[in-house]
């Protein structure tokens, strides 16, 4: 990933504004490599984990995760530029907190200013204080009202549909287009496949209860026994009363710092 030209992700749930931003970016910053285009917040977060772009252009109102929530997860690992239409309540907070944003429809002159700012920031130290930014995003995310998290999963096992309570789940693992659910119910441990991809499921889970530790693994926090550092850059989790070891990818090792 040491190419001189920066990479970018563009996320918007509506086709035309997304295409417009892409076209405008190609004009304003021909060297920018668009490595991922996401149609919702869940895809945007997954796209970030997969491609680790230098810059993320995020629409605020998206299904799955909102742009604010995606930015919260990304933290200081990428430069975030929000895209939104005039009238969004977050704009006042953005202005106060010196957050980069674009108004839709995107104006070429305004985009050029943003591009120049992003380029300058890549040469120098980042001008945005990550801690201040995180506080601002936390405040905005708290104002966002989320639907209640999932409490029951429906998994097709043979000819029956099993109901699995989320508090019995040990971990979820992505399995191509399906998600493998490993659970431990009173009637014994087991596993099942559900049709929802993990990246979409993630947006419906209680983020305090379920921790993503890898692009393809989400663990119930109370099932984790220990995080073991194997060597520089490698870490895995051991679970309570289970033999599996789950790899923790670099992005999520910050969750286990020790007190």
């Amino acid at each position: 990933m040491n190419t001189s030209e920066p990479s970018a992700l563009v996320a918007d749930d509506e086709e035309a504004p997304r295409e417009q931003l892409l076209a405008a970016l190609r004009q304003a910053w021909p060297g920018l490599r668009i490595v991922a285009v996401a149609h919702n917040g869940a895809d945007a977060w997954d796209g970030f984990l997969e491609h680790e772009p230098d810059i993320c252009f995020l629409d605020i109102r998206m299904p799955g995760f909102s742009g604010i929530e995606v930015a919260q997860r990304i933290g200081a690992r990428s430069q975030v530029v929000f895209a939104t239409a005039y009238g969004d309540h977050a704009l006042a907070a953005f202005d106060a907190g010196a957050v980069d944003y674009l108004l839709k429809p995107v104006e070429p002159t305004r985009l050029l200013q943003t591009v120049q700012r992003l380029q300058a920031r890549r040469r120098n130290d980042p001008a945005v204080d990550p801690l201040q930014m995180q506080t601002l995003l936390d405040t905005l995310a708290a104002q966002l009202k989320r639907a209640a998290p999932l409490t029951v999963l429906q998994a097709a096992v043979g000819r029956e549909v099993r109901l699995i309570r989320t508090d019995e789940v040990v971990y979820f693992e992505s399995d191509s287009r399906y998600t493998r659910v490993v659970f431990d119910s009173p009637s014994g441990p087991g596993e099942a496949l559900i049709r929802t991809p993990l990246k979409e499921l993630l947006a419906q889970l209680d983020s305090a209860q379920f921790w993503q530790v890898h692009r393809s693994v989400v663990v119930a926090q109370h099932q984790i026994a220990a995080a073991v550092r194997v060597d520089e850059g490698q870490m895995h989790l051991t679970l309570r009363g289970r033999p599996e070891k789950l790899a923790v990818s670099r992005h999520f090792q910050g969750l286990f710092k020790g007190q």
Partner: protein
Amino acid sequence: MIPSAAPSIDWRTVFMLLPQRRFTAAELARAVPVPLSPTLKTAIAMNLGLMAPLLVWAFWRRGAAPTLVFMAVFFVVVAIAGMSAWRNPSGTVARVAYWVMPVGGGLAVGMLLSRIGIDRLQVAAMAQLVALGVLGLWFTIVHRHQYIEMRLLELAERERAVEMAQRLASAQLAPHFLFNTLASVQHWVATRDERAAPLLQSLTRYLRSTLPMFACALHPAADEIEAVRHYLDVMQARLGARLVWSVDVPATLRAVMLPPGLLLTLVENAVEHGIDPQLAGGRLALRARAEGGQAVFEVQDNGPGVNAPRGDGIGLANSRERLLLTHGPAARLELGPAPGGGCLATVHIPLPT
């Protein structure tokens, strides 16, 4: 007897020449939120304080004690009644004083006159004082009453204006909607996409049907449904396959009068909270039927349901209030879970019999 066509005599007013409206405590608190100011109190106290010794000096002579006692009592009564009338001109104290002061004053003057040996000039001066006091009280009551009445009227008027302004502001011109739509139009025009023209047409129709909509308190369901259709056309162009919608309102119910924007607000809510949050999109249906002397309008989506947060609820509260204003308590607006998941908003409007 007076013929029934002629205006009849209001005997209550004949015997109490005062405005009849009684103010409630809440109305008084609203119209006159501040009590008698210290300045006014000081001014009254100074006037009385100067006048009392002057009067005592002017009337003082042998045998004037009853006159002075009467005057003292009269001044206390005038002060109490006056203050009370100032606070509440429609109150019982003011009304009782309206009768007691002239009658009591007249009786006292009469009694003094009938006593031989009392200076007639003195009595005449006292009678004038009583008349002055009564007139002052009457004027206070009428003036204050009118002032409070006008003030209440003014406040109500202002409230209506504010409500109207809010209604207009919250009318469908949500800038977010407009600019997002313009973003699509702009891009499709620039790329010569053939979806540009129909979207622009839908947006124009939407604006044309919603902008004049809020000028009147009621409009026929047919107009409302037109606005809803144009809105859904716009959203359809923007969301594509993520939005599937249907409108089914029988012709017989299209003349039902509705507060403007009522169904549109429900449909917008359904799109924002039912369709938008779903990764795969969703379905929306607007239906109407006649049932038990009522028109029933339903807006249903298959989104995350009624337990999912629905904005701040201001839109809904506003709609309920307007429905109450236009149709009374027989009209209802309810929000509940839809069979099979999602949210179902139901509006009941009584049909004219």
